[in-house]
């Protein structure tokens, strides 16, 4: 028997709903549906096979493929360059500062020396917050005053790292709206000066459709990978699919809580388990 477009439409309509309920954005859900249609419509399956099972499995494999594309070996990259500069960017309140503390903690445990750059010179209490986290994990913070130039702090932190033979510099930036052109320009400037080896986009797993707009606008800044936080809040993780689909870059870690050990390597099966 043949899989027709009509079959795909009717069977995908309820699978589509499951994707949406798992916080995959509407735009990405529809694009995946189109990709799947092109791939399997007209395909012949034997008379004993179940059409629904075939289509469902094709969707699962298509999603697995998207989620598993390109991996980044962070440790290998860090070993290859000194100081290795990592910059964190993203929307307000997504967990950038906390993620820096967690990743700094992980790298320190693996034997690397780390320094933080307090390049959020805007938000109230941002420097104290980073400093307290740094104190808890035993990492030094390079900071200026509030209102200072974020790029200048990053420059200072990198110079400090070069002088002290430090392995990794992690740059914290202020949260910003993807719709604010001036703020996007500001973070592009920080990137021009700091020339990071890795730029990480931090997003909230609880976010819905706006995660696509965030991913697109921050992608414009130039990102190498993403971290999806607050997965522990019963978030289904569909945002990971949207981000990877839109940016073409992998999700490196997921945030699974507020403790320093709550950063786990991204596992596509986690998302697939929720959806299927």
């Amino acid at each position, binding site marked *: 028997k043949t899989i027709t477009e009509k079959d795909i439409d009717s069977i995908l309509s309820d699978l589509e*709903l499951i994707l*949406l*309920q*798992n*916080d995959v*954005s*509407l*735009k990405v859900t529809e694009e995946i549906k189109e990709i799947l249609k092109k791939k399997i419509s007209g395909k012949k399956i034997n008379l004993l096979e179940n059409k629904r099972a075939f289509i469902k499995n094709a969707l699962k494999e298509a999603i697995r493929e998207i989620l598993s594309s390109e991996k980044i070996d962070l440790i290998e990259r860090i070993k290859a360059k000194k100081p290795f500069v990592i910059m964190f960017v993203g*929307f*307000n*309140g*997504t*967990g950038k500062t906390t993620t820096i503390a967690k990743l700094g903690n992980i790298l320190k445990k693996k034997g690397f020396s780390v320094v933080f750059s307090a390049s959020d010179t*805007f*938000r*109230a*209490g*941002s*420097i*104290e*917050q*980073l*400093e*307290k*986290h740094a104190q*808890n994990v035993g990492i030094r913070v390079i900071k200026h005053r*509030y209102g200072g130039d974020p790029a200048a702090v990053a420059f200072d932190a990198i110079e400090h790292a070069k002088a002290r033979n430090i392995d990794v510099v992690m740059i914290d930036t202020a949260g910003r*709206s*993807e*719709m*604010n052109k001036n703020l996007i320009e500001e973070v592009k400037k920080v990137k021009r000066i700091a020339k990071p080896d890795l730029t990480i986009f931090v997003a*909230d797993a*609880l*976010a*819905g*459709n*706006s*995660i696509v*707009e*965030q991913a697109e606008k921050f992608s414009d800044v130039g990102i190498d990978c993403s971290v999806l936080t*607050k997965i*522990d*809040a*019963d*978030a*289904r993780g569909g*945002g990971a699919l949207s981000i990877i689909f839109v940016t073409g870059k992998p999700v490196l870690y997921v945030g699974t809580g*507020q403790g320093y050990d709550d950063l786990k390597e991204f596992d596509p099966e986690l998302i697939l388990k929720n959806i299927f």
Partner: protein
Amino acid sequence: VLGEALNKALKKLTRGVVDEKLIKEIVKDIQRALIAADVNIELVFQLSKNIEKRAFEEKLPKGVSRKEHIIRIVYDELTKILGEKHEQIYLNPSESTVLLMVGIQGSGKTTTTGKLARFFQKRGFKVGIVCSDTWRPGAYHQLQQYCSPHNIEVFGDPDEKDAIKLAKEGVKYFRKKKYDVIIVDTAGRHKEEKGLIEEMKKISKAVNPNEVILVIDGTIGQQAMPQAKAFSEATPVGSIIVTKLDGSAKGGGALSSAAMTKAKIKFIGEGEKIDDLEEFDPKKFVSRLLG
């Protein structure tokens, strides 16, 4: 008997005049708009069922197109959830009004606490803020730095580990000073963190707020409704403030939360500055939601 047959025929006739295909198409478009705006999927289906039913059954008013009529129905169905106009936070005239800010990590509680305090201060009220967040590093400093330029007093103690004790002491402190409004900021939490949900219950029991305000991130997706449900079951939510609507998000999660908790959205946040707080306007919100 003749009357009944005629009635049936008339019904069929009017049904025939109604463009079923067009109505279904328009409702499908509205469904997509609501889903793209982050409205809870179950709520979208409930709403579109009501909208479609009314579109078929209600008589098309003179001079109004089918599409305009359906849009009016959509507005009507949404304002049933959101209310017709802006609703105030009620202030007790005879004693301090205590407001308790709760919500998920990073939703904007601390920033909104400052904004709300400033809102009341501008209107001539004496406002005090209590920082009872004992978890987040720099929480007290954040409030202190944000509010001190406006001479809004913040009560807190970065070394205190007991959030309930801190909230109690802070409220007592401002009650003694006969402040009009006391706003208590709390640590972020979500429904899976049972210990923190329990802490929130205890804080609420200790300070007995006039209103529990749920601060919702404008970007929140399908988890808005289940989270709002859990918060409301722990501490009945009196009102909602939606933040970050200066991003690309349409705020459908907040609408879903309002539907679940029966609480009204009273303010929206459209920026990080202390004046970026606006009184909620249902019509504006719905038109933005529908794009």
